[in-house]
C-alpha cells in the first residue's frame, strides 16, 4: 500500500517516521499527566490507554484521504489516548480536567453523545483534540463509559468501518443495543448518586445520635464504627495485661449482630451498653493469668456477643454458632465454646 501512495503522502509518511521519537515522548507525557490527574482527583476508571498510530494504519488513512492533509500535524489522531470510565458523570468530570491540562482545539473536538437526533442511538463518546502546551502536534483524547466502550468495540469487530456500510437490519439491532446501554449507564450513575446521598444521610443521623432511625447494614455499621464506640471497652481490656491493640475489621460481626436481633444502630448501641461490664469481666478472667500482651480491636465486640448469647439463653450451641460465624465452621469450635461456657460459669455470668 505504501508504494502506491503519491509523493505528497510519501512525504507525510517520512515526516511521521522522523516524528516518532517525539511522538513517543508525548505519549508517555500524556499518559503520566492523565494518570496523575485522575489520582489527584480520586477518580477510578476502567482503563487508561495511549497508542501511536502504526505506519500501516497511517498509510491506509493517507490512501483514502491524503489530499486533505497538508502536513503530518494536520492529522489529529496520530497520537491517541482513551479513558474508559465506570460512570457517565465521570466522562464529563474528566473532560473538564482535560480542559485544564491541555489546550483543546474546540473546532475539531466533538461530543458524539450530542450528535444523535432525539430518535437515534449509536456510537457515544467524547472526542477532544488536544495539544500539550509547548508542542505543535495534537492528539486525540477519547472519553467513554465501559458500556459505550463495549458497544464501540463490538461494533468495530463486525468489520464495518462506518454506519453507512453496515446492512440496515444489523444497524438497527446495534443501535437498539446502544439505546439499552445508554439507559443502563444512566441507571448506574443514578444508583451511585443515591448511594452517596444515603451514606451522607446516615452519617448525619449517626452524628446527631439518632441511632434508632438508622437500620443496621454494612454502610451504616461502618459509619457507626467511625465514632469508635468500642474504644473504651477495648482500652479497659488491654489494660489488664498492658497489651497493645491491633486494628481488626469488624464487618464480619454484622451478621452476628443481626442474629442477635440488632435491627438498628440504636440496638447495637444498647447491646454494647448492656453487656460492656460483663464483657470486660470475661476478658479479665481469660487474660488475667496469661502474659498475652497483644490483642485485636475485635476483642471488645467479640466478648459482648459472647455475653449476650449466654445471657439470652443461647448456651454452648449459641457460642459454637458465633465462632463458626467468625472463624468458619470447625470441629474445634465446640471445644472452644465449651471452654468459654465454663469460664463464663466460673465468674457467674450464667
Amino acid at each position, binding site marked *: 500500500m505504501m508504494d502506491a501512495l503519491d509523493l505528497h503522502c510519501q512525504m507525510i509518511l517520512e515526516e511521521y517516521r522522523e516524528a516518532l521519537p517525539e511522538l513517543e515522548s508525548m505519549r508517555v507525557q500524556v499518559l503520566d499527566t492523565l494518570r496523575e490527574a485522575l489520582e489527584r482527583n480520586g477518580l477510578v476508571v476502567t482503563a487508561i490507554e495511549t497508542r501511536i498510530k502504526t505506519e500501516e494504519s497511517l498509510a491506509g488513512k493517507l490512501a483514502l484521504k491524503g489530499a486533505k492533509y497538508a502536513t503530518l500535524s494536520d492529522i489529529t489522531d496520530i497520537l491517541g489516548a482513551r479513558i474508559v470510565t465506570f460512570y457517565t458523570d465521570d466522562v464529563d468530570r474528566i473532560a473538564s480536567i482535560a480542559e485544564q491540562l491541555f489546550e483543546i482545539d474546540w473546532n475539531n473536538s466533538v461530543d458524539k453523545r450530542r450528535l444523535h437526533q432525539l430518535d437515534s442511538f449509536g456510537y457515544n463518546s467524547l472526542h477532544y483534540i488536544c495539544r500539550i502546551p509547548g508542542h505543535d502536534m495534537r492528539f486525540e483524547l477519547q472519553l467513554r463509559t465501559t458500556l459505550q466502550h463495549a458497544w464501540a468495540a463490538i461494533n468495530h469487530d463486525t468489520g464495518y468501518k462506518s454506519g453507512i456500510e453496515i446492512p440496515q437490519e444489523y444497524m438497527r439491532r446495534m443501535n437498539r443495543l446502544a439505546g439499552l446501554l445508554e439507559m443502563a449507564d444512566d441507571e448506574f450513575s443514578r444508583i451511585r448518586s443515591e448511594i452517596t446521598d444515603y451514606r451522607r444521610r446516615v452519617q448525619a443521623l449517626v452524628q446527631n445520635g439518632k441511632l434508632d432511625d438508622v437500620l443496621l447494614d454494612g454502610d451504616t455499621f461502618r459509619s457507626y464504627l467511625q465514632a469508635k464506640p468500642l474504644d473504651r471497652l477495648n482500652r479497659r481490656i488491654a489494660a489488664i495485661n498492658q*497489651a497493645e491493640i491491633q486494628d481488626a475489621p469488624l464487618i464480619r460481626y454484622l451478621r452476628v449482630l443481626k442474629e442477635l436481633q440488632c435491627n438498628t444502630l440504636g440496638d447495637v448501641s444498647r447491646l454494647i451498653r448492656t453487656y460492656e461490664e460483663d464483657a470486660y469481666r470475661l476478658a479479665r478472667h481469660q487474660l488475667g493469668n496469661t502474659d498475652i500482651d497483644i490483642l485485636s480491636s475485635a*476483642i471488645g465486640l467479640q466478648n459482648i456477643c459472647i455475653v449476650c448469647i449466654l445471657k439470652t439463653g443461647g448456651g454452648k450451641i449459641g457460642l459454637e454458632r458465633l465462632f463458626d460465624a467468625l*472463624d468458619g465452621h470447625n470441629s474445634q469450635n465446640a471445644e472452644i465454646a465449651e471452654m468459654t461456657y465454663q469460664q463464663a460459669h466460673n465468674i457467674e455470668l450464667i
Partner: protein
Amino acid sequence: METTIQQSGNQIIASFSGRLDTAAAIPAAEAVKPLLEAENSEIILDCTHLEYISSSGLRIFLSVRKEAAAHGSKVIVRNINADIRQVFMMTGFISLFEIQ
C-alpha cells in the same frame, strides 16, 4: 522450634513446629523474612506441628499479615490446635486471620 519455608508457584508455605515462645520468636522472625517480600502470593502459615504460641509468635504472624496486605498477598493460618485456637479467640485474633 523449627520454621521451614517451601514455595510452589505463587503459594508459599511456612511450617512451624514446636513452641513459638519469646526465645523462639527471634529465629522464627528471621526465617519468615522471605514471606514479607512476597508479591501477590498465597501465604500459608502451617501450624500442624505447632504446640504453643506466645504474644511474640502472634506478633510474627501479624507482621506477615501486614506485609502480605501491602504486597497484594493473602495469609491463611492452617491446622491450629485447640490451645492455639483458644489463644486466637481470647485475643480477638480470629477476626484478623483466615483460619482453616
